[in-house]
C-alpha cells in the first residue's frame, strides 16, 4: 500500500472537483450555475478522506444549452434504482421545461459535481432538494433576463415548457434557448432550498416508466465490461485460495508459453493479460502457486461462540432512564439473543473496470457506486494528481452496497500502467464472492419487560458487530437503552474478510431482532401483535402505516400463535416508515417455509415517481426473500465456501409471494428514501408469521428448513 500523499494537491480544485475554467471549456457556451451544499449529511459514516472533501465539494450543477436542452449533472450513478428518470422529472418540474428536454449525465468525475457515493437512499432526499433549488434559481435568473429583453416586469412573466411569456400580452415571449444563446452566467446560491408546492408540479408525483428501458431491452445499454478500446487487454489476476493466505512462490512459465499471453508481476500482484478473454482464463490456471496459511480459527459454525468471547468498542447510542431497575418492577421479563450471518451482494454484473492511460492522464470506466471514491483511490494507489484521474461510470448491473468497493478499478489502472495498454478487468463470479464486502454477521441481545397491561417498561438493546442502522427503539419505552459493540481489531479480530454495507445496512437484522422481541412479548401478554404494537407506539406515522397495512391485508386480530401463519413487523429506514404483514405456509414435516403474501406500506413523504417507488418496494420485498429464507455465506477460516450461484441461493421466480405495495399519500412532506426501506421488515414479519403458524420461534435468519424444523421440534418438547 502506498502512503496517502494527496492532501496538499487539492488547492487547485474548485468546489466542483475540477478547475472552473475546464468546466466551462467542456460545456461550451450557455448558462453555468453552481450551487452550494444545503446541509450536512451523514458524515460520520464516511471514510476520513471523503469527510475531508465532502463539505467543500458536495455540489451539483446544471447546464442550459443553446438549443434549450437541459443537462443535469450528478455524481450519483444509475444501478437500477431509476434516478435517471426521477431526477430528470424533478429538474423538469423545477425549471419548467418539457421532460424530454432534460438529459442526464451521471457519475463522471470530470463533468459532475463531487458526490460521496450512491447509497443510503440519499439521491432523492439529499441530492434532490439541492438540485431542485438550483433549478429554481436558474429559472429566476432566466426570468430576470427575459424581463430585461421584453421590457416587462418579472411579476408579469410566466414560464411554461421553457418559454417565458408576458401574461398580459402572450405574443411577447422568449425561450430559455434564446436567452441562453451566446451568454454565459455564473451565480452561487446561498438560499436554502425549500420543497415547492407539489400542486405546481407536472411530472413529480406522476408515474413514469424507466427512461432507459429501450436501451436495456435492446442490449444497447453499456455497462463497464461492455466497453472496448483499440489494443485493449483482458486481465486475470492471481488470487489466493483464502483470506489470510500469503503467496510463497509462483511459477508463471506455463502461462507465458501460451501465445498472445503476457504475464506481469509486482510482488504478490501477478496478472496474465491477452487480447483474448479465453486465453487469460486458460493462462491463469497454468500458474503454479504456493501459499503459507495464517488463517483465523473461525467458521460459520463456530462464529457466534467466537463472537460472544470478544472484547469490543462500546458506544451507547441512546439512553433514557434505567432499564435494569425498571425491569425489576415488571411482571414479565424477556431476555433473548439473536444471530445474523454474513450475506453476499451478488449483483448479476460482477465488478468490472476498463483503464486507459494517455500520457499522465488516466481514465477508468468502472462499475462502482463511488466514482469519486475510486478517483481518490486511484490518486492514492497510483500516486497521480486528481486532475489527471477521470472516472466514468456507465450503467451498473446492480450494486446493493457491494459496489461501494472499487478495487477492480485500481487493479485495472495498475495493469494499464504496467502494460502501457488499456486493460479490462472483469471479476469472475468466484472473485466476486471472494472479494465481496459481505454484510457483517452479528449478534443482538435484548432484555425487555412489560407490565401487567402489556406496556413495555424496560428495553435494553445491544447490537454486536453488524451495525447500528435501525437499532433505536421505535416504541414508547420510558426506560430504554441502545448500545453498540463494534470490532476493535487491535483487541479482538472477528471478521476474517471484508465487510460493508448491504442494502439497508443491518437494518434487516435490527428490525428482525426488535420485532421478534416485540412479538414474543405480545404473545406472552396474550395480546394481538398489531394491537400490542399500536398500544406501545406514539409515533403517529408508524401507527398509520401499521393500520393501513392491516386494512390492506384484511387483518383480523388474534393472539399468537393463532395457527394462521400471519406475521407483522415495522420499522424506519432512510427517513421512511415501513410496515409489513406476511403470510406463510410451513410444512411441519420438513420445515420448509413458503411465503404466500406480503403487504408492504411505506410513508416516504412526497413520492417523486410513484411507479418507480413501488418498483423499488417490490424489489426490496423480493430481494428480502433471500436473506429471509436461504442466504448465508459459509466459510472456514479465510476460505469462502460459497463462490457461485450453485450453492448461494438467491430469490427465484417460484419463490414470489403475492406482493402488494402501498405508498402513503404525503405530498406535503419532504421526500425520503425509497431504495432500501421496504427490505427491512420482511424477515421479521416472516419469522413472526412462522411463529403464528406453528408456535416455533426463530432467533436466526435465514429460516432454512433445518432451523425451522429444529424450532418446531422444540415446541413439541
Amino acid at each position: 500500500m502506498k502512503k496517502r500523499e494527496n492532501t496538499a494537491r487539492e488547492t487547485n480544485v474548485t468546489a466542483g472537483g475540477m478547475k472552473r475554467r475546464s468546466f466551462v471549456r467542456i460545456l461550451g457556451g450557455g448558462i453555468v450555475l453552481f450551487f452550494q451544499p444545503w446541509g450536512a449529511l451523514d458524515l460520520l459514516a464516511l471514510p476520513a478522506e471523503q469527510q475531508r472533501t465532502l463539505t467543500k465539494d458536495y455540489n451539483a450543477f446544471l447546464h442550459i444549452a443553446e438549443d434549450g436542452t437541459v443537462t443535469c449533472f450528478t455524481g450519483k450513478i444509475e444501478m437500477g434504482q431509476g434516478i435517471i428518470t426521477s431526477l430528470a422529472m424533478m429538474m423538469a418540474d423545477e425549471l419548467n421545461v418539457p421532460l424530454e428536454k432534460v438529459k442526464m449525465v451521471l457519475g463522471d468525475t470530470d463533468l459532475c459535481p463531487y458526490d460521496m457515493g450512491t447509497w443510503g437512499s440519499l439521491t432523492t432526499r439529499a441530492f434532490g432538494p439541492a438540485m431542485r433549488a438550483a433549478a429554481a434559481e436558474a429559472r429566476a435568473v432566466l426570468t430576470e433576463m427575459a424581463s430585461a429583453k421584453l421590457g416587462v416586469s418579472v411579476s408579469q412573466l410566466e414560464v411554461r415548457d421553457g418559454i417565458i411569456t408576458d401574461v398580459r400580452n402572450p405574443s411577447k415571449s422568449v425561450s430559455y434557448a434564446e436567452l441562453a444563446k451566446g451568454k454565459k452566467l455564473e451565480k452561487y446560491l446561498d438560499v436554502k432550498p425549500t420543497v415547492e408546492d407539489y400542486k405546481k408540479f407536472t411530472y413529480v408525483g406522476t408515474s413514469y416508466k424507466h427512461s432507459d428501458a429501450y436501451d436495456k431491452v435492446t442490449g444497447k445499454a453499456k455497462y463497464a465490461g461492455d466497453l472496448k478500446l483499440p489494443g485493449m487487454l483482458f486481465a486475470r489476476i492471481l488470487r489466493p485460495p483464502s483470506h489470510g493466505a500469503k503467496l510463497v512462490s509462483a511459477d508463471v512459465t506455463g502461462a507465458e508459453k501460451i501465445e498472445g499471453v503476457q504475464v506481469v508481476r509486482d510482488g504478490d500482484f501477478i496478472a496474465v493479460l491477452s487480447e483474448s478473454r479465453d486465453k487469460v482464463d486458460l493462462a491463469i490456471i497454468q500458474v503454479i502457486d504456493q501459499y503459507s496459511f495464517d488463517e483465523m480459527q473461525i467458521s460459520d459454525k463456530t462464529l457466534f461462540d467466537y463472537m460472544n468471547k470478544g472484547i469490543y468498542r462500546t458506544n451507547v447510542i441512546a439512553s433514557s432512564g434505567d432499564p435494569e431497575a425498571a425491569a425489576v418492577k415488571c411482571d414479565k421479563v424477556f431476555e433473548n439473543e439473536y444471530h445474523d450471518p454474513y450475506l453476499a451482494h451478488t449483483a448479476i454484473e460482477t465488478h468490472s473496470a476498463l483503464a486507459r492511460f494517455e500520457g499522465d492522464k488516466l481514465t477508468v470506466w468502472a462499475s462502482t457506486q463511488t466514482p469519486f471514491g475510486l478517483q481518490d483511490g486511484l490518486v492514492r494507489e497510483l500516486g497521480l494528481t486528481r486532475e489527471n484521474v477521470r472516472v466514468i461510470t456507465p450503467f451498473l448491473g446492480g450494486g446493493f452496497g457491494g459496489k461501494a468497493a472499487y478495487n477492480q478499478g485500481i487493479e485495472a489502472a495498475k495493469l494499464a500502467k504496467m502494460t502501457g495498454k488499456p486493460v479490462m478487468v472483469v471479476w469472475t463470479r468466484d472473485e466476486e464472492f471472494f472479494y465481496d464486502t459481505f454484510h457483517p454477521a452479528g449478534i443482538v441481545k435484548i432484555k425487555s419487560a412489560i407490565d401487567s397491561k402489556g406496556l413495555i417498561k424496560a428495553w435494553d438493546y445491544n447490537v454486536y458487530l453488524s451495525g447500528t442502522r435501525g437499532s433505536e427503539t421505535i416504541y414508547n419505552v420510558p426506560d430504554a437503552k441502545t448500545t453498540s459493540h463494534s470490532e476493535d481489531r487491535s483487541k479482538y479480530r472477528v471478521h476474517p474478510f471484508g465487510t460493508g454495507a448491504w442494502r439497508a445496512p443491518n437494518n434487516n437484522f435490527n428490525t428482525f431482532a426488535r420485532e421478534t422481541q416485540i412479538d414474543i412479548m405480545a404473545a406472552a401478554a396474550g395480546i394481538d401483535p398489531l394491537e400490542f404494537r399500536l398500544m406501545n407506539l406514539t409515533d403517529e406515522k408508524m401507527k398509520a402505516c401499521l393500520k393501513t397495512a392491516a386494512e390492506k391485508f384484511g387483518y383480523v386480530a388474534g393472539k399468537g400463535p393463532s395457527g394462521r401463519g400471519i406475521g407483522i413487523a415495522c420499522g424506519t429506514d432512510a427517513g421512511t416508515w415501513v410496515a409489513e404483514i406476511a403470510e406463510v405456509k410451513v410444512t411441519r414435516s420438513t420445515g420448509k417455509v413458503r411465503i404466500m403474501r406480503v403487504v408492504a406500506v411505506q410513508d416516504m413523504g412526497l413520492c417523486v415517481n410513484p411507479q418507480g417507488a413501488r418498483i423499488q418496494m417490490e424489489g426490496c420485498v423480493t430481494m428480502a426473500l433471500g436473506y429471509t429464507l436461504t442466504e448465508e455465506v459459509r466459510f472456514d477460516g479465510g476460505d469462502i465456501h460459497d463462490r457461485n450461484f450453485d450453492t448461494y441461493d438467491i430469490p427465484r421466480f417460484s419463490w414470489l409471494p403475492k406482493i402488494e405495495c402501498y405508498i402513503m399519500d404525503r405530498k406535503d412532506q419532504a421526500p425520503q428514501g425509497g431504495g432500501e426501506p421496504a427490505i427491512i421488515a420482511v424477515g421479521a414479519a416472516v419469522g413472526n408469521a412462522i411463529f403464528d403458524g406453528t408456535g416455533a420461534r426463530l432467533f436466526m435468519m435465514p429460516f432454512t428448513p433445518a432451523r425451522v424444523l429444529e424450532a418446531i421440534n422444540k415446541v413439541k418438547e
Partner: protein
Amino acid sequence: MEQTIRFRLNNRDTELVTDPNQLLLWVLRNHFGLTGTKFGCGIGFCGACTVLIDNEAVRSCTLPVSEVAGKSVVTIEGLETEGKLHPVQQAFIDHDAMQCGYCTPGMILTAVAFLGKNPTPTRDEIITGMEDNLCRCGAHMHIIDAIEDAGKVMKGGK
C-alpha cells in the same frame, strides 16, 4: 488449432477463424461486439448470457463456439425486425420489467424461446419456464406480467 466456424448470426451468414474451444459468450462479445449478451456467473447458473440457438435458449458462457457451426444464433441485438421491437421486448418496456437491466437480455431471450414452445402459458408455466434466470434487483413480478402480455400479443398474430 484454429478452425473456420460458419454459422448464422442474427439472421446473416457469418464465419470466423478461431480456436474452436473459445466460448460463444466471448466470441459474441469480443469478436462481434454483441455486448448485450452478458457475463454473470460463468457456469450457466444465472442466465445473463442466454442466446437463441435454432430457437432454443442456450447459455453461451459454457458453450464452445464450435457447437454453433451450421446453426442459427440470435442475440438480443438481433431480435428487432425492420426497426420494430419483438413483442417480448416491447412488453418489457410496457411493464417496466427491469431495474438495472443486466439480466434483461437473457430474460427476454429465454422468454422468446419459451413462448415459441408454449404460446399460451399459464402464470405458473411462465414461472417454471423462467425459474433458472436470476435477477437480483427483484423485477420478477413485472417480468412475469410482461411475458404473459407478450404471449397474448404474439398469439394475436403480432
